C-alpha cells in the first residue's frame, strides 16, 4: 500500500498549486503533512507518477477511465479548433480554469462531484502551462522542482503508469481467447467451466427467434444452453410487447441486442464499448452469416421451418465468426472506423500496378484486388460498381484472420455472397497467395507470416470462370514481376506502418488513426513497441472507442475532444473531410498534443495519394 503517503503528497501539491481546488473538491481533507521538502529527482518522479497513477483508487468507480473521460467530455469547451480555450477565465489566477470543470460537473454528474474533482485536478494541474505559454501568463512562477517533474514526465508513455493489477477489467484479458474445456474433460466440473465462461470479457451469441442456439463465441452449446434460453425469453418477452429490447446493463456489463430477420444477436461486453459500436459488431456477424447463406436462403429456411437448426447450413463457418468476433475483442481500427487500410506506396507505383492489372483483365471479372499483409494495394472495378468496406472486411477476415484459406495452399475458388454489394446471390472468389508454398515451403503458417502475405483476389459472377481467373492471375503476376512491382509491394509490406517519430518528429503522440472520409480508408502509425502487447493494444483501442463514441454520439455536435485520463490522454478531431484520433502519455499537454495532431494531419494531406487508393483502376 503505497497510496496513502503519496496521495497525501499529491493532494499537498494540489493544495499548494490550487487552493481553490483542494479546499472544496478533495474528499480527503488536505492533511497537514510535512511537504517533503527535498524529494530528490528519483522519488519526486515516482511521486509524480503516483499523482497520475494513484488517483483512480480514490474514485468510487475506479480505473475504467470511463468516468474521468466523460468528465473531460463534458468539461471540454466549444470544440472550435482552439482546443485550449478556457472559457475566458483570467489565466493569472491559477485556480480559475477549474471553474469550468466543477461547474459542468455539477450540472451533469452531481452525484459523483466530490469524487470526480480529484481526478479532474490531476490533469488540469498541467493545463496552466499551456495557457501561460499561449497567453503570455505566469508559468514562470512554478517551482523549479515542478518544472523538473514536468520535463521528466512528459515522455511517459500511455499505460506505463498504472500496473495491470489496478486495472481490474483487463487482468483476465490475456486469457480471453483461451478455449473452455468441454464436457469430455473430466478434470473440470460444470461449475468451473461456467466460471471460466463467465470470466470472459466479451461474448457474442446468435440464436434463432425460436430459441435455437446458433453460435456462441465461448463455451460449447451444452454449457450455455440455459443461458441462451434465458436470453431468448427476455428478448421475446419484449418482442411480444411490441417494444423490442435494444440493450441493458448489469453491473459493469453491457448487453446489446440486435434482431435481424429471424435471428437474434447478442453482444455482452465488459470492455466499455458504446451501444452503437457493439451493434456495428453484431451487424458484421450478421453480414458474415449472409455471406455464407444469402438473404433469400436465410429467409426461406426459417419461413418453411421456424425451428430449423441453422448450425448445419452454417457448418464450417464458426471459425470465421470467431475470428471476426476476436478481432472486435482485440480492437480493430478498421471495424471501429468502418474503413480500410491501404499499403503505402508511391502514386506512380500504384498506377503501374493498376495498369498491369487492367491490362490482363479477364472478361467476366467483377473486382480484382491485390492485398498485402491485410492492407489493400490495388483495386480494379467496373465503373458502375464500387466495393463496400464491410464486404471487404469479410473477405479480409476470411483470408488474413482465419487460417482456413491460407492453410490449404494452392488456388482457392470460394463461393461467397457480398451482402453490401448484393445480398441475393453468390459471387465466386479466386484467391492465390503470391508468396505461397514456393517462398515458405515448410514454415508453419502462424499469424505472423499470414500478416505479411501478398494475395491476389479476383471476384467473378461466373462459377465456371476459375481457369480464366487463374490465367489472368498468371498474366498479372508475370507483368508485375517484369515491372518489379512485386518487390515494391513486398518491401512496403515488410516496412510496416509509419512511426509517429517519422511522421511528426518531436511530438509526444504515441499513436494515431487518420480516416479519410471521402475514400473510406484510414491509416495508422505503427503499434510497436508500446502497443504490441495484447493488453496494451486493447487499452489503446478502448481509448479510441471512447473518444469515437463521444464524437459520434447522436446529438453531440463535438468537433474536437481532448480526454485526459490517469494513464493516457487522447484526442479526437472530426471534420467533414477526415477523422483524426490520437493517444499520448498522461502528461502530454493539450498544447503539445494539438501541435502533434496538426503535424500528422499535414503529413496525411501531403501523402494522401500514397496512403490512400483514390479511385483505383476503373474499367
Amino acid at each position, binding site marked *: 500500500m503505497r497510496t496513502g503517503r503519496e496521495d497525501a503528497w499529491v493532494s499537498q501539491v494540489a493544495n499548494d498549486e490550487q487552493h481553490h481546488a483542494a479546499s472544496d473538491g478533495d474528499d480527503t481533507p488536505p492533511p497537514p503533512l510535512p511537504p517533503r521538502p527535498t524529494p530528490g529527482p528519483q522519488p519526486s518522479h515516482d511521486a509524480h507518477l503516483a499523482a497520475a497513477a494513484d488517483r483512480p483508487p480514490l474514485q468510487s468507480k475506479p480505473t475504467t477511465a470511463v468516468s474521468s473521460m466523460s468528465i473531460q467530455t463534458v468539461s471540454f469547451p466549444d470544440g472550435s479548433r482552439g482546443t485550449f480555450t478556457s472559457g475566458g477565465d483570467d489565466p493569472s489566477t491559477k485556480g480559475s480554469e477549474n471553474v469550468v470543470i466543477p461547474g459542468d460537473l455539477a450540472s451533469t454528474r452531481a452525484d459523483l462531484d466530490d469524487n470526480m474533482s480529484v481526478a479532474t485536478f490531476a490533469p488540469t494541474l498541467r493545463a496552466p502551462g499551456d495557457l501561460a505559454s499561449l497567453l503570455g501568463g505566469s508559468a514562470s512562477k512554478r517551482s523549479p522542482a515542478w518544472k523538473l517533474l514536468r520535463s521528466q514526465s512528459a515522455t511517459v508513455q500511455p499505460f506505463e503508469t498504472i500496473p495491470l493489477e489496478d486495472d481490474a477489467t483487463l487482468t483476465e484479458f490475456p486469457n480471453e481467447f483461451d478455449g473452455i474445456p*468441454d464436457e*469430455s474433460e473430466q478434470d473440470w466440473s460444470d461449475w468451473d467451466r461456467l466460471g471460466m465462461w463467465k470470466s470472459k470479457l466479451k461474448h457474442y451469441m446468435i440464436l434463432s427467434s425460436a430459441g435455437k442456439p446458433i453460435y456462441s463465441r465461448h463455451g*460449447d452449446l451444452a454449457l450455455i444452453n440455459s443461458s441462451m434460453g434465458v436470453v431468448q425469453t427476455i428478448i421475446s418477452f419484449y418482442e411480444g410487447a411490441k417494444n423490442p429490447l435494444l440493450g441493458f446493463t448489469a453491473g459493469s456489463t453491457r448487453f446489446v441486442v440486435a434482431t435481424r430477420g429471424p435471428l437474434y444477436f447478442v453482444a455482452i461486453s465488459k470492455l466499455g464499448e458504446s451501444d452503437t459500436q457493439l451493434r456495428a459488431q453484431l451487424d458484421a456477424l450478421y453480414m458474415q452469416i449472409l455471406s*455464407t*447463406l*444469402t438473404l433469400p*436462403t436465410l429467409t*426461406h*429456411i426459417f419461413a418453411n421451418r421456424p425451428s*430449423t437448426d441453422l448450425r*448445419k*447450413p452454417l*457448418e*464450417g*463457418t*464458426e*471459425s470465421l465468426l470467431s475470428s471476426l468476433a476476436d478481432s472486435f475483442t482485440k480492437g480493430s481500427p478498421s471495424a471501429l472506423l468502418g474503413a480500410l487500410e491501404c499499403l503505402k506506396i508511391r502514386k506512380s507505383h500504384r498506377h503501374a500496378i493498376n495498369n498491369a492489372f487492367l491490362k490482363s483483365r479477364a472478361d467476366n471479372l467483377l473486382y480484382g484486388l491485390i492485398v498485402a499483409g491485410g492492407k489493400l494495394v490495388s483495386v480494379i472495378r467496373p465503373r458502375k460498381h464500387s466495393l463496400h468496406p464491410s464486404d471487404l472486411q469479410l473477405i479480409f477476415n*476470411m483470408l488474413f484472420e*482465419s*487460417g*482456413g*484459406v491460407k*492453410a*490449404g*495452399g*494452392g*488456388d*482457392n*475458388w*470460394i*463461393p*461467397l455472397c457480398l451482402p453490401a454489394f448484393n445480398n441475393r*446471390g*453468390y459471387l*465466386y*472468389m479466386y484467391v492465390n497467395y503470391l508468396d505461397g*508454398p514456393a517462398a515458405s*515451403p*515448410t514454415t508453419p*503458417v502462424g499469424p505472423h507470416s499470414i500478416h505479411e502475405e501478398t494475395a491476389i483476389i479476383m471476384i467473378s459472377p461466373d*462459377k*465456371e470462370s*476459375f*481457369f*480464366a481467373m*487463374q*490465367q489472368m492471375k498468371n498474366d498479372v503476376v508475370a507483368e508485375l514481376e517484369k515491372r518489379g512491382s512485386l518487390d515494391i509491394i513486398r518491401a512496403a509490406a515488410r516496412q510496416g506502418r509509419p512511426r509517429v517519430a517519422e511522421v511528426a518528429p518531436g511530438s509526444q503522440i504515441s499513436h494515431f488513426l487518420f480516416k479519410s472520409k471521402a475514400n473510406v480508408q484510414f491509416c495508422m502509425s505503427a503499434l510497436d513497441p508500446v502497443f504490441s502487447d495484447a493488453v496494451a493494444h486493447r487499452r489503446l483501442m478502448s481509448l479510441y472507442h471512447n473518444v469515437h463514441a463521444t464524437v459520434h454520439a447522436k446529438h453531440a455536435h463535438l468537433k474536437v475532444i481532448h480526454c485526459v485520463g490517469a494513464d493516457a490522454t487522447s484526442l479526437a478531431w472530426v471534420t467533414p473531410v477526415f477523422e483524426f484520433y490520437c493517444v499520448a502519455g498522461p502528461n502530454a499537454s493539450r498544447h503539445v498534443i494539438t501541435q502533434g495532431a496538426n503535424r500528422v494531419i499535414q503529413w496525411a494531406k501531403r501523402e494522401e495519394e500514397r496512403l490512400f487508393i483514390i479511385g483505383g483502376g476503373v474499367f
Partner: protein
Amino acid sequence: MADSAGAPRPSSSVKLVLLGEAAVGKSSLVLRFVNNDFQENKEPTIGAAFLTQKCNLPTRTIKFEIWDTAGQERFASLAPMYYRNAQAALVVYDLTKPTSLIKAKHWVAELQRQASPGIVIALVGNKLDLTNASAAAAAGGNSEDEDEEGESGGVSGGGDESGDARKVSTDEAKTYAEEESLLFFETSAKTGHNVSEVFTAIANAIPETSLKSTRGPGASNAVSRGGDEQRVNLTGPRGDAAKDSCAC
C-alpha cells in the same frame, strides 16, 4: 535436355477430385501428398482448393490436378463442377465415424451415375492413427456425438474404451470397395501412412488410353453445363441433411 532421372518420360495430367463428408481429412491428405506436411486442427476448407503435384511412375509422369472440395452440405451442389471430366476421384471417410462411410457411399453412387464413365475411384478411410491397428473393432458402434469434431482432429473421438476409436471395420469397407470395384486404402494423413501409395495406385490405374499429353489448362473446364445452378441452393442440402440424420 539433361535428363537426370533416366529417359524423358511422357508426362500427362490427370484431373482428380476429393469428395467426402466434412472433417474427414481430405485437405490433410492433399497437404500430406503435396507438401508432405500436416496441421493439427486445420480449419475447414471453404469452397474448393486447386493444387497440382507430380507423381513419377516407372514409365511416365503423372501430373495430378487436384480439386480439394469442402465437405459441408451447402457446397454439395457445386460438386458436379469439380468431378465433371475428372479421371480420378478420392472418396474419403473417417474410420472413427460410421456416418462418414454412408456419405462416402452416396458420393460413390453419384460419381458412378454422373461422372465420366472411365473414372477411377479410390475409397480411403482416413485417421488410421486414431486406431489400434491390431484391434479389428466392432463395427456399427453408434457414436451419438457427431457434432463439432475438428478436421482430422478426433480429439473427442467418441468412445475410446481401449484407446481404439475405430468404428468402421476394414472388412466392411473393403467388401464394399470390392463390390463397387474401387481402390481401397486406409491412411493416416497425420503420420503419412499409405498416403503416397493411394496416389501412386490411382496413377497406375488410369488407363493409358485416357491419358493425353499435357493439355492447356481449363480445356476440360471450358464447357459450361448450361448454367443450371447459378448459385448454391440451400434447399437441396437441407433435404439431404434430413436424410442423413435418419440414415445413421
